[in-house]
C-alpha cells in the first residue's frame, strides 16, 4: 500500500467517522442505507467479481435473515442477542441449500437463481398467516447489545459502520487467501483449475455460502435500521439493483460496491424527489452502465489514472 492510498483511506475513514456531526437526519439515514446495501452488493461481488458467477437471488438471503430476526423479536419476544444470530444462521442455511445451483454455469445459473429467488418472495407474500403477507412485520424494536439499547440514529450509524469495516477487513483477508485466489483462477479458466486438481464446484459452493452469509448479515442490519420488513425485500428487483450497485462501483474491489450503492441510492432519492418516472431513469442507468461503463466507476478512474492502459475487462 503506497502513501497515496494510505492518505486516501485515512481521509475516507475520517469522513465517515465525523459524518454524524455534520450531516442531518436525512443524510444520516441515507448513508446508513448505503452501508447496508453496499454490504449486500459486496456479497454479490464475491460471486461476480471473484468467482465469475452472477447470482440473482441475493435478496432471498437478505430477506430470510431479516424476517427471521423480525419474527423472533416481535412475535416471540426473543432478545437481539438470540434473534440476530438466528437470522444470520437462517439466511446462511438457505444459501447452503440454494448452493446446489453451482452445479450449473453461465446463463443457466442466472436463470436458476432468478427462479430460486422467486420461491422466497412467493413464500413471504402468500404465507400471510406467518409472515404478515403484503404488510410484513412491523414494530421491530431497536437492537439491544450487552444490555445497551442502540436506539438513537447516530448510535446505530456507528454500529453499522463498525460491522461494515470489520466485514471489509474480513473480506480483504478472504479474497487474498489461497481460497480467494482459487476463485479468481476459476473465473479465469475453470478447466485449467480442474486440471490442476482443484474441486472447482466445491470452491464455488463455499463462495456461494459465504456470499449468502454476508447478504444475511446485511439483512439483519437492515431490519433493525428499517424497523419493518415486507416481501419487497425479497424481490427480484432488489437482487438486480444490488448487482448493478456492484457493477457501477467497480466489480472485484472492496470499495466499489459501497460507492455503487451510494451512487445508486443517492441518484434514486434525488430523481424521485422531482421526477415521477424514476424507475425509467434507473432503467436507463442500467442500460448506460452496460453499454459505456462495464468496469464501473473504479474501473473508470483506474483507466484514467493509467492513461488508458487497462487490464482486460470482463
Amino acid at each position, binding site marked *: 500500500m503506497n502513501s497515496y492510498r494510505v492518505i486516501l483511506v485515512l481521509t475516507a475513514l475520517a469522513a465517515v467517522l465525523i459524518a454524524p456531526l455534520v450531516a442531518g437526519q436525512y443524510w444520516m439515514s441515507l448513508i446508513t442505507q448505503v452501508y447496508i446495501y453496499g454490504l449486500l452488493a459486496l456479497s454479490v461481488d464475491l460471486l*461476480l467479481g471473484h468467482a465469475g458467477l*452472477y447470482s*440473482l437471488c441475493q435478496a432471498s438471503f437478505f430477506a430470510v435473515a431479516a424476517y427471521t430476526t423480525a419474527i423472533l423479536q416481535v412475535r416471540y419476544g426473543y432478545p437481539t442477542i438470540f434473534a440476530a444470530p438466528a437470522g444470520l444462521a437462517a439466511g446462511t442455511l438457505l444459501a447452503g441449500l440454494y448452493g*446446489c*445451483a453451482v*452445479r*450449473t454455469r*453461465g*446463463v*443457466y445459473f*442466472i*436463470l*436458476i437463481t*432468478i*427462479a*430460486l429467488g*422467486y*420461491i422466497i*418472495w*412467493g*413464500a413471504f407474500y*402468500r*404465507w*400471510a*398467516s406467518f409472515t404478515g403477507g403484503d404488510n410484513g412485520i412491523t414494530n421491530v424494536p431497536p437492537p439491544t447489545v450487552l444490555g445497551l439499547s442502540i436506539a438513537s440514529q447516530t448510535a446505530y450509524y456507528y454500529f453499522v459502520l463498525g460491522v461494515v469495516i470489520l466485514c471489509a477487513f474480513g473480506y480483504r483477508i478472504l479474497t487474498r487467501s489461497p481460497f480467494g485466489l482459487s476463485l479468481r483462477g476459476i473465473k479465469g479458466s475453470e478447466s485449467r483449475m480442474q486440471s490442476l486438481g482443484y474441486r472447482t464446484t466445491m470452491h464455488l459452493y463455499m463462495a456461494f455460502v459465504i456470499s449468502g452469509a454476508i447478504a444475511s448479515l446485511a439483512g439483519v442490519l437492515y431490519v433493525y435500521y428499517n424497523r419493518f420488513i415486507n416481501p419487497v425485500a425479497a424481490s*427480484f428487483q432488489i437482487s*438486480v439493483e444490488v*448487482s*448493478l450497485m456492484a*457493477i457501477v462501483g467497480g466489480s472485484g474491489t472492496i470499495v466499489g460496491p459501497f460507492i455503487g450503492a451510494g451512487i445508486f441510492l443517492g441518484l434514486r432519492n434525488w430523481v424521485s424527489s422531482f421526477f*415521477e*418516472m424514476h*424507475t*425509467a431513469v*434507473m*432503467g*436507463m*442507468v*442500467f*442500460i448506460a*452502465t*452496460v*453499454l459505456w461503463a*462495464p468496469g464501473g466507476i473504479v474501473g473508470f478512474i483506474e483507466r484514467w489514472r493509467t492513461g488508458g492502459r487497462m487490464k482486460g475487462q470482463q
Partner: protein
Amino acid sequence: MHSSILQAINGISFAALLFLLASGFTITFGLMRVVNMAHGAYYLVGGYIGLTITRYTGSFALGVLSGGLAVIPLGYLIDRFLVSRTGENHLAQVLLTVGIAFVLGDVALHIWGGDNLKVPTPIELRGAIELPGGIIYPTYRLLLILFGIVVGLSLWLLYRKTQIGAVVRAGVDDREIVSAIGINIDWLFVLVSALASFLAGMAGVVGGAFLTLYPGAEWEILVYALVVVIFGGLGSLEGAMIGALIVGLLDAYGRWLLPEFSYFVLFGPMAILLLFRPRGIFGREG
C-alpha cells in the same frame, strides 16, 4: 374428481399462454444466444396496446393482431441498437434487458395507469360450455387451449418441416457454418426475433383477457416462462411445449391444493430436476 379435472383444464389453458411466451424466449436464445429479460415487458406492452385497440375498434381479433404487430418494431430496435452491442456476454444482456424492461414498464404505467385492466372479450366468448361429464368451463379458456395447440403446431411445422425452419435449426447448431454457406444470418435473426416479439405481444392480449394487465405482471409472467424454459431446456421448441404443460399443471394443482405454498409446488420439482439434469429435459450439452 370434478375439481381435479377442472384444475387440469385450468393448467392446460395456462400452459397454452405460457407456451406463447416461452417459445419465443427459447428460440431467440437458441439461435442468437440472447437472454432477453425484456420479454415479459413485450408481453405487457403488447397486451396494453391490444387492449386500447380492442376498446376503440370493438374487435378482439384486431386487438390480438395489433398487440403482436406493435411489439415487432420495438423488439427490432432494442435488438438492433442495444442487445447486439453486448455480444455473447449473458451478464450484460441480463442487466441491459432488465433495464429496458424497467423503462418499458414505467412508461406503460405512465400511459395506462396502475389499475388492473382486463382486455374486453367478445360476447360470444364470455359464456361457459358444458363439457362431457357435466363440467362447466369458460368458453374463452377452452378456446385458448385450442389457440395454443394451433400456434404450437404451426411453429413446430415451421421449425421442423420447412426450409426456413431447417436454416434456423442449422443456425442453432452452428451459425458460423450457416453464414459460411451463404445464408444471410442477420436476416434470419431479424425474422426470428420478430416472430418472438409477435408471439409475446399477442400473448399479452390473450393473457390480459383473463389474467388482467397491471404493473408488475411482466415479471410474474416472465418468471413462469423462465421456469418453463428451465424445465424444457434452453433453445428447444419441444422443450418449451413440455415445460409449459408441466408448469401449467403444477401451478394449477399447487394453487388448488396448497395455496400458501404454490410457489414451492412449482419450484421444488424444478430444483430437483436440476440436480439430475442441469440443462432441462431437452437441453443439450455445450
